């Protein structure tokens, strides 16, 4: 921050101009070639129109230009309506543009052996991004404006549809690239655009608009998710990742009931997913299943949920006596007991139920109403493989899980949970049945995980004890913490990040756990409320923020009035 003050003193009123020059150079540089080798990052050798990584740069540089021109100059009146926020968005643009451009240049240098292989365009953009960064840091800090306009309903709905459609196309584009560099750059660019729009108030405006048309937004999001397999062509690899994300996200949302709403830290939650999976496996037609009873799958689903819910009640019952860190340890111990137990029930150390460390392999594909999930089928001329079938079922599952979560969140029960999370003693004094609600949180969350588990068993083809270790529980908690506690969007985001990155970044897979540990530490240090924070949650971590407190109060008043 001291550097910012120094820059501000040095540049003074010229800061805006410096930033403008930087933004212009960044944008212009993308129209020149960045290197001579066509094979790198989608052909960066062309003149007068941007390609590949240059597009990401032009988006960020262009946004910076728009925001700068909205402050001064002839276009200020026209652009000033929407693009407010002063230096905030420009600063974000500066940071992200610099990262994108220089990462691209480093990628070129790494692929061809040295910076000499970067053509002038790259340096123009690179220098421009740095000038933009310096100029924007010298501009005085302004608060994020609140944009409050309302448009005609139909226009608002069209905007929502367009934004979600754009997200679908971006996701499809990013997933289908086979180059890790491009994938990383797209991610940074998308993150940058989100950060810029957030600082400019547009993201908040969009969120409020989506909130006004909640049903439309949910429907549109669901349609987008439904269309996703159609963008993937015949690629089973991406569909496999997508199904894994959905299973993980459904489980994490179940856990979010326990951790996010009721504030009970559960570090053994993966045991519920595991129990569901083991029920699914043991009651399947696998030759290694020792029970010898294969009921129809809907019944298995029910049994899996009930068994997990029963375990949830057993695990939840000590919550009557212990709380806080101790509860975390108790649940951690339960998780370990589950793992050790399924590892030992192999016939020599106990009754032969789980086939011990080998687990239950060769679980056949699901068959529902005469449709075998291993079969391929064709929609609109696109061939859908095995994982697409599971994807659609899991989509229904996650829609169900989200509905349960949202319903509970807005109900009397949900408010009881939040009261317990905030202050258990006070909640009890106000007549909240704390013990019953805590048990319900454990049982409900566990049942959702059990449901996901029964499908996971068929999806994975086999279940083994080493899939259900403490690290998986830690990952689930991390998905919630990273994304934002108590929100659905946050958990979905967190789950996607945690499952997608390791799959897509093979070069990074060796280090991913190291980075994961570091990210947990840094997140707790700098943004403990998560990426998508509910306002109330945010307030808990920023108690001294008066403005935020007022906004939360307004929100509460709004909800009560409704």
């Amino acid at each position, binding site marked *: 921050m001291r550097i910012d003050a120094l820059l501000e003193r040095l540049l003074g009123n010229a800061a805006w101009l410096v930033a403008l020059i930087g933004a212009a150079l960044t944008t212009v540089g993308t129209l020149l070639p960045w290197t001579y080798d066509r094979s790198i990052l989608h052909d960066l050798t062309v003149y007068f129109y941007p390609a590949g990584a240059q597009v990401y740069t032009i988006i960020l540089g262009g946004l910076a230009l728009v925001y700068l021109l909205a402050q001064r100059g002839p276009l200020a009146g026209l652009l000033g309506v929407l693009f407010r926020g002063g230096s905030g968005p420009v600063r974000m643009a500066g940071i992200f543009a610099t990262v994108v451009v220089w990462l691209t240049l480093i990628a070129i240098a790494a692929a061809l052996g040295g910076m000499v292989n970067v053509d002038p365009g790259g340096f123009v953009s690179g220098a421009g991004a740095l000038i933009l960064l310096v100029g924007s840091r010298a501009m005085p800090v302004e608060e994020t404006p609140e944009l409050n306009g309302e448009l005609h309903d139909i226009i608002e709905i069209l905007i929502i549809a367009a934004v979600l459609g754009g997200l679908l196309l971006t996701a499809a584009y990013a997933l289908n690239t086979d180059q890790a560099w491009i994938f990383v750059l797209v991610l940074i660019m998308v993150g940058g655009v989100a950060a810029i729009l957030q600082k400019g108030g547009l993201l908040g405006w969009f969120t409020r608009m989506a909130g006004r048309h909640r049903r439309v937004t949910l429907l549109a999001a669901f349609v987008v998710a439904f269309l996703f397999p159609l963008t993937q062509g015949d690629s089973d690899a991406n569909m496999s990742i997508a199904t894994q994300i959905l299973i993980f996200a459904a489980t994490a949302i179940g856990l979010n009931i326990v951790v996010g709403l009721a504030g009970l830290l559960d570090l053994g939650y993966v045991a519920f997913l595991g129990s569901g999976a083991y029920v699914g496996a043991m009651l399947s037609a696998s030759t290694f299943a020792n029970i010898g009873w294969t009921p129809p799958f809907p019944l298995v689903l029910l049994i899996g949920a009930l068994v997990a819910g029963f375990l949830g009640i057993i695990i939840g019952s*000590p919550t009557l006596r212990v709380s806080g*860190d101790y509860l975390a*340890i108790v649940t951690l111990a339960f998780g370990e007991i589950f793992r050790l137990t399924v590892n030992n029930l192999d016939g020599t150390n106990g009754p032969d139920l789980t086939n011990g460390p080998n687990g239950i392999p060769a679980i056949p594909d699901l068959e529902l109403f005469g449709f075998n999930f291993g079969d391929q089928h064709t929609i609109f001329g696109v061939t859908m493989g095995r994982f697409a079938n599971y994807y659609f079922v899991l989509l229904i599952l996650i829609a169900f899980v989200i509905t349960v979560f949202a319903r509970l969140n807005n109900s009397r029960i949900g408010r009881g949970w939040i009261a317990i999370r905030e202050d258990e003693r006070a909640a009890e004094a106000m007549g909240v049945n704390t013990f019953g609600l805590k048990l319900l949180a454990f049982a409900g969350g566990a049942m959702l995980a059990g449901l996901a588990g029964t499908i996971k068993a068929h999806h994975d083809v086999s279940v083994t004890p080493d899939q259900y270790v403490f690290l998986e529980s830690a990952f689930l908690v991390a998905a919630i*913490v990273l994304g934002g506690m108590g929100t659905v969007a946050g958990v979905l985001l967190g789950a996607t990040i945690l499952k997608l990155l390791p799959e897509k970044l093979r070069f990074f897979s060796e280090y991913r756990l190291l980075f994961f540990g570091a990210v947990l530490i840094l997140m707790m240090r700098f943004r*403990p409320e998560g990426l998508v924070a509910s306002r109330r949650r945010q307030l808990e971590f920023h108690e001294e923020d008066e403005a935020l407190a007022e906004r939360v109060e307004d929100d509460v008043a709004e909800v009560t009035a409704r």
Partner: protein
Amino acid sequence: MDQFLQQLINGLSLGSLYALIAVGYTVVYGIIQLINFAHGEVFMIGAFGALTVHTVAFDEDMRSLWVLPVMVIGAMAASVGVVILMERFAYRPLRNAPRLAPLITAIGVSIFLQEAVRLFYGRIPGFDDAKRAIPFPQIEFVTGEPIAMGGVVIQRAAAFTIVALIFCTVLLWFFVNRTRTGRAMQATSQDPDTARLMGINVDRIIVIAFCVGAALAAIAGVAHGLRYTQIDFRMGFLAGLKAFTAAVLGGIGNIYGAVVGGLVLGLAEAMAIQYVPGQFGGTAWKDVWAFVLLILVLVFRPQGLLGARVVDRA
């Protein structure tokens, strides 16, 4: 009777190991009410520190007794160094944050340390790949022929662990009760604010508490290496969980409680192997019994065996 005595010795030596680690949980908790989830990794780092010193400074088959103190010092240096960095960069910034934050940070630290050892240890030339269990240097006097007494066989490493615990407990008692710093530590754990007013540098005391725990965990790391003849980067997780169980069993915050809790837990495991009937006995289920014990203690006597303070925290 011989069987019982044998299990008694086994249990006591296992319990000594738990007790040495458990002290680390308890001293830190006693002062800042933080469960340092990453303490198991401090123990693991200790073992790797000792291994590193041995590999760097001595021949592979150097087995004389005087090497042992050097290894212990190396282990302590590694553990204490890591713990100081950990306190400074991970825990201190969060001292006034909501309770969940340091807990998540601790999980992060623990994963980070495990991975750091796994990734970088194998890369240093001359070392074994850390992905597998690494053989730990053996010291002739401590790991040689077991001592046979009547029908009972005592592994020398087991005896070493028990002796180390006795030695450390005496030192710890002296440090806590007879030195200025120790008494400042007691005062801080009673009431940090008043202690601060009395001119005690609370930040320094917290660091010292972390360091005391780390030093004992380092000794436990060496003892573990000598006892099981090999170490690996995952060994901290289960040991840390067990040691935490021991700390809770004895009453967390009470240093002597940690020692008692460790010994009780070790004995309980050893006896469960021998005396639980049918298929649920034997080594396969001993960890399960330890965790069942933890849950029972937390549910029915959350203040632990020696803890007098009523534990009531949200």
